[in-house]
């Protein structure tokens, strides 16, 4: 059954595995929280235009990995190379200035602000910027650009100026994704972007991801949904207990093989009923 799924992924998906310039590389990336080894010695490579997935069980270290790449946290040890150069992101701002955007698992939205304020949170369009923190916000420009950003995602949000608190989980998720997708120039990371979404919203998000592929913006997608992973990405990186268990090329592997690697149990078809699929 899983083999079928592997075969059904789109045949026109470009085969650029292993080819092209390296965009992101980590060497021995490690993060400890006190005694918890959330991520150990991760060696990861991402090439130009490549879309990859990160899969693994709960607590495998996927989100931890994302947080190190995006400057939310500073790694305990190890190196991150971006465009071939070692980088040390001290904050998410550093990562964003490099062109890296992320949709975090917990969204990082301000529920009491409206849609444009959220899309531009932390990088507002300003009037009289010399006023520093008291610079006025250019609401009109932010609104126009938000409408444009949301249009590319195909998401309908009836009232942009109501606060996010009044919106559904799907709409909020789409705001977060539009924010990342419209600012990302070099790399975009999405941590379980469809975990809480219905069928239609999931399709919308997957379409946004396909569009990023057309724009050749590299993507790292964290997902528990193997069907989605096989449909969308070129490579699958499997995390297990804070380590990278291996990398599989989407069109040369099967769901069963991936599940075996996730669980660390040698395969014998026992995963037929795995809820992943």
């Amino acid at each position: 059954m899983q083999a079928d799924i592997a075969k059904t992924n789109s045949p026109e998906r470009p085969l650029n595995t292993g080819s092209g310039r390296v965009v992101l590389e980590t060497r021995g990336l490690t993060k400890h929280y006190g005694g918890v080894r959330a991520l150990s010695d991760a060696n990861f490579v991402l090439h130009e235009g490549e879309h990859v997935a990160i899969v693994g069980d709960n607590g495998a270290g996927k989100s931890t990995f994302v947080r190190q790449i995006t400057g939310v946290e500073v790694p305990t040890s190890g190196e991150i190379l971006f465009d071939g150069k070692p980088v040390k992101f001290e904050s998410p701002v550093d990562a964003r200035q490099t062109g890296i955007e992320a949709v975090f698992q917990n969204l990082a939205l301000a529920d009491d602000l409206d849609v444009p304020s959220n899309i531009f949170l932390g990088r507002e369009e300003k009037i009289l910027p010399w006023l520093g923190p008291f610079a006025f916000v250019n609401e009109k420009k932010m609104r126009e650009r938000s409408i444009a950003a949301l249009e590319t995602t195909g998401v309908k949000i009836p009232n942009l100026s109501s606060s996010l608190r009044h919106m559904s989980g799907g709409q909020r998720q789409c705001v977060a994704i539009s924010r990342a997708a419209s600012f990302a120039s070099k790399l975009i990371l999405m941590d379980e972007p469809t975990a809480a979404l219905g069928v239609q919203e999931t399709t919308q998000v997957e379409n946004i991801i396909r569009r990023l592929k057309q724009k050749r913006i590299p993507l790292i997608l964290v997902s528990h949904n193997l069907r989605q992973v096989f449909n969308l990405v070129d490579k699958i990186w499997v995390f297990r207990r804070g380590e990278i268990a291996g990398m599989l090329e989407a069109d040369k592997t099967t769901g069963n093989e991936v599940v075996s690697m996730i669980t660390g149990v040698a395969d014998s078809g026992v995963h037929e009923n795995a809820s992943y699929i």
Partner: protein
Amino acid sequence: MSSNTEISSSPQTTAGLSTDKRSQPARKSVSRPQEMNVLIGLVAIALIFEILGWIVQGESFLFNTQRLSIMILQVSVVGIIAVGVTQVIITGGIDLSSGSLVGATAMIAMSFAQASTYARAVYPSLTDLPVIVPIAIGLGCGILAGVVNGALIAYTKIPPFIATLGMMVFARGVAKWYTRGQPVSFPTDSYAAIGDGMNPVLIFLAVAIVFHVALRYTVYGKHTYAIGSNEQGARMSGINVERHLVLVYAIAGMLAALAAVVISSRNLTAQASFGNMYELDAIAMAVIGGVSLSGGRGSVPGTVLGALIFGVILSGFTFLRLDAYYQEMIKGVIIVAAVVADIYRQRSRAKMIDKE
């Protein structure tokens, strides 16, 4: 609202999926501005006192300019503080130090505002200074105290309640120590003019307008709400949360000091006991005005209306010749009632979100 909930349960999404959120219409009906409710409350309470006035006292409560101006004057000084406290509470914090800061900064500002005709000035060689000096020193001390509050909260992660409680005790100590308990009096004419006549009201309104604009239309405001909504999210969005918190508490400190300048100028004296319990009055005004103690919600216009409600209730009870002791008790009831109302609002909102 209830009809909305019904609509939202219409089974549009495929069964079996964990969420059924998208069929929710944007709940516009909920978004009658909180300020509107507060305004309705204000009018209702004023009308009640008006009716009671005719029944009990045989005269009008509202149509008495003297009473109204006294009420607004009383409210204005604490209102200035409440504007600062509003911003602190929107970030999800609290400021208990503002009342004591009024005491300390009033003493300090006044000591640089004394007239040379007074023989026992605190700094005999520093009398008749231009009015800007005591103002700048007073506000500077307020800002400094606010920066200490903010830095403690932002960088050492001490809960705001504890940090500002410490500052509250410390500042009251400073106020008493400064002149060993002696009041500081005899300001220059120009200092005395600051709080003269209806000036406190004008200062209050100016402060309210400035910070309403700042909260509503500037980057500062967006970030203040963002931190109160989701501090971690604000950080991930690239907001320097720590620096911003220091700024917000500094502004609160500055406004407490401004209130101190106004009140000491108006009274032509400063005493260590000035501002006693103002912090609670200010918090009550904000909470009555719809500022949520859990952060992220509220506005300066709401707080201004909250201040007016506070004033109307207190002056209403004075008007009804209620004993001063009762007034204090009633104040206590108002404060608790406002917080209970806030918790109730939070609960009903949480229920609404759960239903999604």
